[in-house]
């Protein structure tokens, strides 16, 4: 084989207390789509930051086409043909598309020429974009296009993509893949970071698997099963959530004809929503972020109150009740944003346990807190859900995403809800913790609770839910049984590809 594009040799980077990367070595060939696989905290982000010049390695070398490569800053990396699409978009909301693109370039041409280039490139690759629109008004898919086009305009040799598909509909993913295929055929190498194994199997030529900062394996994804790759990532055999046959009971929660205006300029209005969940049922609600998920959760949790009759619990109107009154009746919610919405970051786990558990667990009597009971409730959650933390006195902020999510989910489940509304239960959570959370939800449903699970992870919804509905621009499709639902049908329920088209060239 010819000379590889980029060679990493023994890269090591340690932070106080953790070794993020421990002698990592691998090669990326010219025109190859190389997958970097690993759980959260495996060191993928640190590794690509070193390649992109954001972080300096403690030891080890990189070679770009045989020549030593030590980018001191992203500018140097960009000059050498490395471009990166970030996981959390590195975009500026108040600036327009062209200005955002200009910020990612070394010597941008005058704005008018740049706008013209953006139009040309975006149409060539099937990612139409108006250069003068303000980025804050764009959808997640469109924002990603801005990032990709910013990279493409620099004619990169190596394109690094950090979890690019987590915010896209299946159709958008397909179009992205066609764009990437086209780039590969033009000789661009791509370093593709993801933990969605099926995507990697369709797209990537080669995969390197990281665990706890070390390379633990390599494989050719096409010839490896998703399960084998997942087990290499986790290091142990993976337990698939078990789905016991359940009998669905009475209708527990019923929403009919609910409309709610958008709470803010950037929010989504809910339009004429109908929804029914029965005892023992898990209703999965899919859809691309920003189509009303947060609004739906706040309506169900009681953060936003509506007309009394719009939401009924076993026939009893609860629309006007606030969160605590609903908790008292058995309607609990776990929002998506862990730090700041589901948990108060700087408060201890004990205090956080009190915040939602006070009503149902009787942790406060006549305005006084029973700290002993609260602490034991927190300890109960930690023990039952395998939350890894030194103790309940630790601040919520100090927990990793997966551990905090287990705590938040566990806190609601242990209150034995009749209805549990949960948004993005496993977002940013590693595979083992995600499996545990899904299993806990299935167990809860088996005990007769009605669960509404809002998620953008379709595989997850297919795995655990009995019925599936999709949110699109604040409208909810009618629910359909998940058995026998195809990806195409789901995509159509989610509103298709939002004006994207296939690459022309």
């Amino acid at each position, binding site marked *: 084989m010819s000379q590889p594009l980029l060679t990493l040799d023994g890269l090591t980077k340690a932070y106080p207390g953790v070794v993020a990367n421990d002698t990592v070595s691998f090669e990326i060939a010219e025109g190859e789509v190389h997958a970097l696989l690993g759980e959260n905290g495996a060191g993928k982000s640190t590794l690509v930051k070193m390649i992109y010049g954001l972080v300096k390695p403690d030891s080890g070398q990189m070679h770009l086409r045989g020549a030593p490569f030590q980018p001191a800053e992203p500018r140097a990396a960009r000059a050498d043909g490395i471009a990166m699409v970030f996981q959390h978009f*590195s975009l*500026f*909301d*108040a600036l327009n598309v062209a*200005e955002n693109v200009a910020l990612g370039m070394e010597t941008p041409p005058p704005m008018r020429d740049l706008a013209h280039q953006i139009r040309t490139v975006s149409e060539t690759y099937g990612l139409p974009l108006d250069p003068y629109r303000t980025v804050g008004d764009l959808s997640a898919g469109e924002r990603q296009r801005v990032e990709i086009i910013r990279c493409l305009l620099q004619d990169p040799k190596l394109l690094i993509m950090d979890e690019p598909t987590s915010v896209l509909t299946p159709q958008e993913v397909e179009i992205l893949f066609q764009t990437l295929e086209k780039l590969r055929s033009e000789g661009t190498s791509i370093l593709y970071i993801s933990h969605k194994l099926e995507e990697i199997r369709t797209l990537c030529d080669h995969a390197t698997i990281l665990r706890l900062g070390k390379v633990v394996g390599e494989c050719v994804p096409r010839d490896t099963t998703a399960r084998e790759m997942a087990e290499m990532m986790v290091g142990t055999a993976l337990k698939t959530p078990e789905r016991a046959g359940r009998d669905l009971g009475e209708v527990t929660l019923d929403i009919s004809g609910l409309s709610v205006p958008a709470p803010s300029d950037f929010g989504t209005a809910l339009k004429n929503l109908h929804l029914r969940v029965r005892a023992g049922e898990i209703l999965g609600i899919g859809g691309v972020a920003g189509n009303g998920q947060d609004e739906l959760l706040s309506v169900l949790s009681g953060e936003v109150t509506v007309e009394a009759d719009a939401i009924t619990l076993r026939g009893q109107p609860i629309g006007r009740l606030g969160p605590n009154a609903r908790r008292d009746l058995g309607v609990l919610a776990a929002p998506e944003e862990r730090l700041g919405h589901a948990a108060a970051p700087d408060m201890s786990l004990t205090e956080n346990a009190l915040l939602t558990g006070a009503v149902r667990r009787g942790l406060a009597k006549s305005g006084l807190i029973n700290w002993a009971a609260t602490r034991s409730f927190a300890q109960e959650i930690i023990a039952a859900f395998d939350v890894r933390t030194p103790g309940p006195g630790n601040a919520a902020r100090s927990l990793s995403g997966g551990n905090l999510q287990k705590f938040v989910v566990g806190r609601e489940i242990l209150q034995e809800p009749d209805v549990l509304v949960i948004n993005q239960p496993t977002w940013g959570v590693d595979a083992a913790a995600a499996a545990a959370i899904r299993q806990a939800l299935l167990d809860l449903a088996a005990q007769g609770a009605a669960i509404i699970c809002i998620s953008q992870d379709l595989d997850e919804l297919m795995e655990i839910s009995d019925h599936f509905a999709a949110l699109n621009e604040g409208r909810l499709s009618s629910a359909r049984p998940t058995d026998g639902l195809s990806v195409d049908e789901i995509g159509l329920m989610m509103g298709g590809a939002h004006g994207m088209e296939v690459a022309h060239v």
Partner: protein
Amino acid sequence: MDLSAINPVLLIASLMVAATPLLLAAIGELVVEKAGVLNLGVEGMMIVGAISGFAIAVESGSPMLGFAAAALGGAVLSLLFALLTQFALANQVASGLALTLFGLGLSALMGQSYVGIKPPATAQLNIPVLSDLPVVGPILFGHDPVLYFGILLVALVWALLKFSRIGLILRAVGESHDAAHALGYKVVTIRVLAILFGGACAGLGGAYISLIRVPQWTEGMTAGVGWIALALVVFASWKPWRALLGAYLFGGITVLQLNLQAAGVAIPVEYLAMSPYLITILVLVILSADKSRAPGSLGKTFHASQ
């Protein structure tokens, strides 16, 4: 009551003078806030600029040297703020308030021996023919150079923010420092430079009060102009021309109400005295009803390890 005693030409000429300290401080703070830093120490930097400028002008006999010293004085004081907030990662609100208190105290100390002295007069622009024109002459061509510099600075800041690459980077840093850092821009360097610029402008504004507007030194003579400049930046929606408009409006009504007081209008003095604040805020609130908003990272502490 004798309204005819008010000369409109003199009124306009003097409102420009009254507005300039406010304008200078506001345009400096606007740049600082555009870079995502909230410096509440404007008042302190102004008063330190006022005494630095006054002292150097008196000692050297040159008002221009005085203004240079004022800019330097303001910038040096703002450097303290930059050290606290950008390197020690201290809270910006608390640091800014402390800076104001420190500046007020320091200026009183520095100015002890300058009370009651007259500073050297600043030369007025005097263009033959043009300056002698009726009406237009005193309004447009009869001022000191610093006043013109203030207006030029507004135009410069506007053009720089809107059209130049450095302006774009500054706005990007203020909008999202994490994203700017991820793209490889030096957030701290850019912010420190912006803070220094803001300090220099505030110092100039302060010296304009002590050397031109009220040519003398008294303790606490900036009398809240720094705070008004801060409010002005917000109500001007972080837009340079609106800051100019707001400053002139404020200066105009201040001068007008003084004239009205002198003319003996039958409105209680208290109402006249509060009118500049009320009217300026009212007008700018109406103007700021569009969708412009504060820079995304305004007042947030940036730490590069993320």
